[in-house]
C-alpha cells in the first residue's frame, strides 16, 4: 500500500513536471523571455515620457469642464481622444492578441486587419486581469504633474497623442504581469497552488517578489532616462552623467523615472501577478 502511494506520488510529480515543460516549450514563455520583454519595454516607457515632456501641462486638455459648454460632455478632451483613438486601433485589429488591453473597451463586429493565428500563453480564465483604471489615474493625477512644466501652449491634440503613447506603454508593461505570473506559476506549481487555494495574497506577493531583481530594474531604467534624455551634441554630451547634474540637463528627471518604477510600475505589476494567480485555478 505504501509502495503504491509512493509510486503514484512519483508518477504525479513526473506528470506535472512534464506538463510544465511541455507548456513552456510550446509557448516560448520563460523567465528569460519575460524579462527580455520587460527590459525592452523600459525603453518604450522612457521614450514615451521624454516625448510627453516636450509639452507643458496643458491642463485644459484634462479638464472635463473645458469641453462642457454646449456639447453636454462630461469627459475631458483627453478621455475623448483616447476613446476614439482606441476605437480606430480596435478596427485595425489591436487588442485581438490579448497582450494589450484597452482603457475603454470598444466592440468591433469585425476588424480590417489581415487574419493572423494568435496563440495565447495565458490561462484563459485569468487573461482579462488588468489594472488599467489604476494606471489611468496614476498617470494623470500623480505622474503628469511631476513630468510636465506647469504652463499651456495650446497643443492639446499633440499632447494627448503623446499621453496615449505613454499610457499604452505603461499598460502593456504592467499588465504583462499576467505573463510573469504564468511563468512563475508553471515554474513552481506546487507552492503556488497551495497559496492560491488558501487565497493567501500576502504569501503570494512574498513568493513573487525579488527585491534584488527589482533593484536592478529600477537602476537600469533610471540610467536609461539619463542616456536617452541627454542632449546629444557633436562635441560630446552636455552632461556626463555626473550625479550632481541638475534636472534640466536631461529631458526627463532620471530620479522621477526611478520613482515611477519604484512606487507604481513594479507594485502595480505585482498586483496584476497576484490577481492573475488568484484566477489561475478557476
Amino acid at each position, binding site marked *: 500500500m505504501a509502495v503504491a502511494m509512493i509510486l503514484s506520488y512519483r508518477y504525479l510529480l513526473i506528470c506535472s513536471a512534464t506538463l510544465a515543460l511541455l507548456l513552456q516549450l510550446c509557448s516560448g514563455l520563460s523567465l528569460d523571455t519575460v524579462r527580455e520583454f520587460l527590459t525592452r519595454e523600459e525603453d518604450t516607457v522612457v521614450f514615451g515620457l521624454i516625448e510627453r515632456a516636450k509639452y507643458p501641462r496643458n491642463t485644459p486638455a484634462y479638464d472635463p469642464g473645458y469641453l462642457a459648454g454646449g456639447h453636454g460632455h462630461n469627459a475631458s478632451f483627453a478621455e475623448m481622444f483616447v476613446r476614439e483613438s482606441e476605437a480606430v486601433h480596435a478596427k485595425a485589429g489591436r487588442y485581438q492578441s490579448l497582450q494589450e488591453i484597452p482603457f475603454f473597451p470598444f466592440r468591433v463586429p469585425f476588424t*480590417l*486587419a*489581415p487574419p493572423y493565428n494568435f496563440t495565447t500563453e495565458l490561462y484563459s480564465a485569468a487573461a482579462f486581469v488588468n489594472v488599467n483604471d489604476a494606471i489611468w489615474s496614476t498617470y494623470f493625477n500623480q505622474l503628469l504633474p511631476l513630468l510636465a512644466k506647469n504652463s499651456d501652449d495650446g497643443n*492639446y491634440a499633440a499632447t494627448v497623442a503623446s499621453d496615449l503613447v505613454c499610457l499604452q506603454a505603461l499598460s502593456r508593461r504592467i499588465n504583462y504581469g499576467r505573463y510573469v505570473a504564468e511563468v512563475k506559476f508553471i515554474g513552481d506549481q506546487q507552492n503556488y497552488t497551495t497559496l492560491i487555494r488558501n487565497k493567501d495574497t500576502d504569501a503570494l506577493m512574498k513568493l513573487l517578489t525579488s527585491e534584488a531583481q527589482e533593484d536592478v530594474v529600477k537602476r537600469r531604467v533610471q540610467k536609461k532616462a539619463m542616456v536617452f534624455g541627454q542632449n546629444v551634441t557633436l562635441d560630446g554630451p552636455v552632461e556626463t552623467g555626473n550625479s550632481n547634474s541638475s534636472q534640466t540637463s536631461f529631458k526627463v528627471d532620471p530620479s522621477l523615472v526611478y520613482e515611477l518604477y519604484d512606487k507604481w510600475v513594479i507594485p502595480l505589476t505585482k498586483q496584476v501577478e497576484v490577481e492573475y494567480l488568484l484566477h489561475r485555478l478557476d
Partner: protein
Amino acid sequence: MGEVELSLAAVRDALVREEDSIVFALIERAGRPRNAPAYAPAGGGGGSGGRSLAEFFVREAEVLHAKAGHYQKPEDVPFFPQDLPPPVFPTKGYPKVLHSFASSVSVNDAIWKMYFNELLPLFTADGDDGNYAETVALDFACLKALSRRIHIGKYVAEVKFKDAPQDYSPLIRAKDTNALMNLLTFKAVEEKVKKRVEKKARIFGQNVTSEDSADKQEGNADDSECKVNPEVLSKLYDLWVMPLTKDVEVEYLLRRLD
C-alpha cells in the same frame, strides 16, 4: 514644443529636437518585424476599398487628429488632407509668422512613398508577428515625426529670406529653382546634422544595462548592437530628410513674393 519662433537659432533648435523624436520613433518601429500584410492592398470586403491597413489607419487617425484641432500650424501637415473635418474643440490661436499660403505647401506624398518603399526595408527585419495594428501605429508616429521635421523647412526658408531678401527676391522672381537650392544649401551644416543624428542613433539605440559604464554616455557600443543601424539614420537624412526639407524651402520661397 510651442510655436516655432522666428530666428535661425530657434528654428535650428526645433530641428535638433525633432531628430530625437525621429530616432525614437524608428527605434520603436524597428522593434517589430516587417509585417508585410499590413501594407498589402486589402481584398474587397470590410469597406476598406482595396486600401492597405496602413493607409486605412493613417486616414482614420488623421480624421481624429483633425477633429482634435491638430492641423493648425504650418509644420503639422496631414497625409490625406481631402475632406478632413474641422476642429470640434476650441483651438488656441498662434502667432502667424509665415506667409499665409504656408499651410498648403506639402511634400507628404514624397515622404509617404519614401518611408514605405525605401526606408522600411532598410531598418526592419523580415518576418511577421501578426501585430499589424500596433505596427501601423508605429509607422504613423515615424511619418508624423518625419513630416514635421521636413515641413519646419517653411520656417527655415522664412528666416533665410528675411535675412537676405535682396539675394532671394531676384531668384524668386526668375523662378530659378536651382539657384535657390544652391543659395539654401550649407554643406558644412548638413555634414554636422548627419553626424549628429548618426550619433543619436548610436546612443539611443544601445542596450543599456544597469552595470556602470562610462561608455554608455558616449555611445561607444558596437553598432551591431544598436536597435537601428546608425548608418540608416545618416542615409535617411542625407538622401531624403534634408533634400525634402530643401524642397519645402524652395516651394515656400517660390510663393513668398505673391
